């Protein structure tokens, strides 16, 4: 059974049909690249899976359970984490605090023990910090731990956002343009982190990315959308040779 299954998604914004019957699925430990020209509806798909939009019709299944109608926080509880195209971190908080926030779904102690920082709460906090430190090490952001996010370079902020998503211990990770605005070196680092997340942590990933080199290099499968319709799906080689994809990107002659 696929880990995440998207079936015949359709959504209308006013009179515009932003998505029209898009279906695809992600197997366990698979990296699916979602590509397409600007305005093709890629981020909309992410927003539906994540519970921000409710589709006009269609279904999203996580481990066989239908998620349509659930709120984003409920979906997050089920083990689905995401990052955003424009970084959505708490800019005036430190890196560690941002990552600790990602652990929210694991916190069980109440207000009372929390305000005195006693017993169970302290133990929980230490356990969560331990996990967060593991991620700090994994993403090599040791030097920024106590820094305020606003002051950090863009590439590092992107890494911190990925870290926050990871600290939720997700089963599935949705990445919206993880490499946008990065230089070559930062892009290479990011690609390596994404691969390691898949390999080391066994997380399935769906990634929207415009940097074709990265997508072709690391994705297991690629799904191409254009004007709200899926026009192709396959492994990177197949996609590169697909006439419909070439047409969508380069136009007709």
């Amino acid at each position, binding site marked *: 059974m696929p880990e995440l299954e998207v079936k015949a998604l359709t959504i209308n914004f006013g009179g515009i049909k932003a998505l029209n019957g898009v279906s695809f699925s992600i197997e366990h430990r698979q990296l699916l690249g979602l590509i397409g020209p600007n305005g093709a509806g890629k981020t909309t798909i992410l927003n539906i899976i994540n519970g921000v939009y409710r589709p006009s019709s269609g279904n999203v299944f996580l481990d066989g359970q239908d998620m349509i109608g659930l709120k984003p926080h409920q979906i997050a509880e089920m083990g689905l984490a995401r990052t955003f195209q424009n970084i959505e971190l708490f800019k005036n908080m430190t890196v560690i605090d941002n990552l600790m926030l990602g652990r929210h779904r694991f916190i069980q102690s109440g207000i009372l023990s929390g305000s005195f920082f006693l017993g169970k709460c302290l133990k929980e906090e230490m356990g969560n910090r*331990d996990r967060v*430190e*593991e991620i*700090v*090490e*994994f993403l*090599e952001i*040791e*030097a920024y*731990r106590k820094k305020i996010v606003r002051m950090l370079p863009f590439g590092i902020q992107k890494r911190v956002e990925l870290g926050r998503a990871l600290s939720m211990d997700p089963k599935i990770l949705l990445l919206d343009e993880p490499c946008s605005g990065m230089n070559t070196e930062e892009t290479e680092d990011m690609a*390596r982190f994404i*691969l*390691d997340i898949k*390999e*080391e942590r066994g997380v399935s990933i769906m990634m929207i990315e415009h940097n074709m080199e990265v997508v072709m290099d690391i994705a297991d499968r690629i799904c191409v959308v254009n004007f709200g319709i899926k026009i192709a799906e396959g492994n990177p080689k197949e996609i590169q040779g697909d006439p419909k994809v070439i047409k969508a990107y380069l136009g007709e002659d």
Partner: protein
Amino acid sequence: MPELTLPVLFRDRVKEFGEEVALREKKKGLWRRISWNEYDTHVRNFCLGLKSLGLQKGDRVSILGENCPEWLYADLANQCAGGISVGVYPTNSYPQVKYILDHSQSKFVIVKDQEQADKVLVIKDQLPMLEKMIVIDMKGLRKYDDPIIKGFQEVEEIGKRIHEKTPSFFQKMIEDTKSEDVAIIVYTSGTTGPPKGAMLSHQNITSVLDSFFQVLPVSRADSLVSVLPLCHVAERLFSLFIPMKSGCTINFAESIDTLQADMTEISPTIFLTVPRILEKIHSTVTIKMQDAHPIKRWAYDQFLPLGQKVAERKLSKQGVGLLLGLPYFVGYFLVFRPLRNRLGLLQVRECVSGAAPLSKDIMKFFHGIGLMVKEAYGLTECTGVFSMPSGNDIEIGTVGKPLPGWEYEIAEDGEILMKGPAVFAGYFRDEGATQQAKRGGWLYTGDIGEFDERGHLKITDRKKEILITASGKNIAPSEIENRLKFSPFIKEAIIIGDRRPYLTALIQIDFDNVADWAQRKSIPFTTFKSLSRDPEVYKLIQEEVDKANKELSRIEGIKKFLLLEKELDRDDDELTATMKVRREMIEKKYGELIETLYR
């Protein structure tokens, strides 16, 4: 009675200190202590693990990666089993790694992480002697199914099981190590030609320790941060050999980016450094001070000359006096103490700079802030250190007196010759080079030097690098280069002038500092290249060169110079692994440019 070797010293320290801290490593944001007993367990298990993988006495084992406790475990474990450790610079490119693994005929290679493992995987088919690659951090490698790969922990597990079956085996191996056995091979960085592997025996190591401790005693209470590459003999001496005699603590920073903060947290008492790092600290402080609050800047400008005056008095053994002492006391609390604390150098009682000549101005700067930097001199071939100032008997511009236990002589042409138990055993698989270096019992250092009336050694330059101008004047380029590099805007300078009518220089600007300067002056630039080409930048450097020229004799003055449009790089063979300039290579590469300076 076992012979005196490094493993025997290690065993003795473990017995002596047991549960006390031997190493500290920052992990997950916390400093974690590793006791001597834990140190011993790791070394023992890894040693037995290596043995079961087929390590024989005399086999070479290479270690490739940044400094970490496992580096030391692997090195010691291998030596305990009678193997020979070979350190490889983690910055080496894969052809350079291949050269060393191939030349040393390594049976095993221990690598830190995926980055290093990937280099070895590219070349492993060309290395018939290589049997296993042992990886310390398996992150990103678990999906590789190459049979050559083994995890560090896996090897330790094997060793642990062997130890449970035969508990005395490890002790027996340690007792079997012989003092004349080769312990490590250190590949010299080689400013000319390919690197050569200097073989150092246990006896070399123990004898250098003996003489070192007479000049600079290290105790259990001392602590060091291991920063420089462990494959270099000086860092090996400080991070591995010295603790085996003194029991001092070695600390490993979390990463290179956190080094400054980690230094401040540990505040080491002994600091081994190289001129490049001191130059960097000096230029960072100089530049940062421009951004500091005006009051801070004022205090810094006022007290720094005062600090230098006090340092001069101390060096010349004069009393400081109340007139200087009182304001200095104020300056200490206002400027020097906070500055040194920020740099993580507050507790440093001994600061030793080596590996390359240090500029006098840099030295004076550090003495001014109360850090009595001393310059040591040595070669890989003499197990690291030959001479070093003792206590506060520091004479700026010299490397102090030779350590006890050395015989020495200055040859007719000025070359320094030395003789003693710490002279290396020879170059591995290079009899010709060995005979070249060791003649009639003397080690020919290739360095030109002289003793002053008080017996302090002054190093002029490498013999090969001495320039002879067209008018027949001998000139030591490194001194002039260092004078130029004192400028925060100049990162690298190469003096040209052999068989030429006058001296010229190729200069590489310090990108960070010049970029900072350009931003203040609103000079637009995009890359290193465009910055180097800017006429305003040329003017800036011209001023810096003029300043240096004022302090040099007329014949040593730099008539013309040009700015390099790219940064010198190890990967382009322009720098050695220790970041020394490969003069020949550069003169060849930039030959045409150089000619334009003589038209």
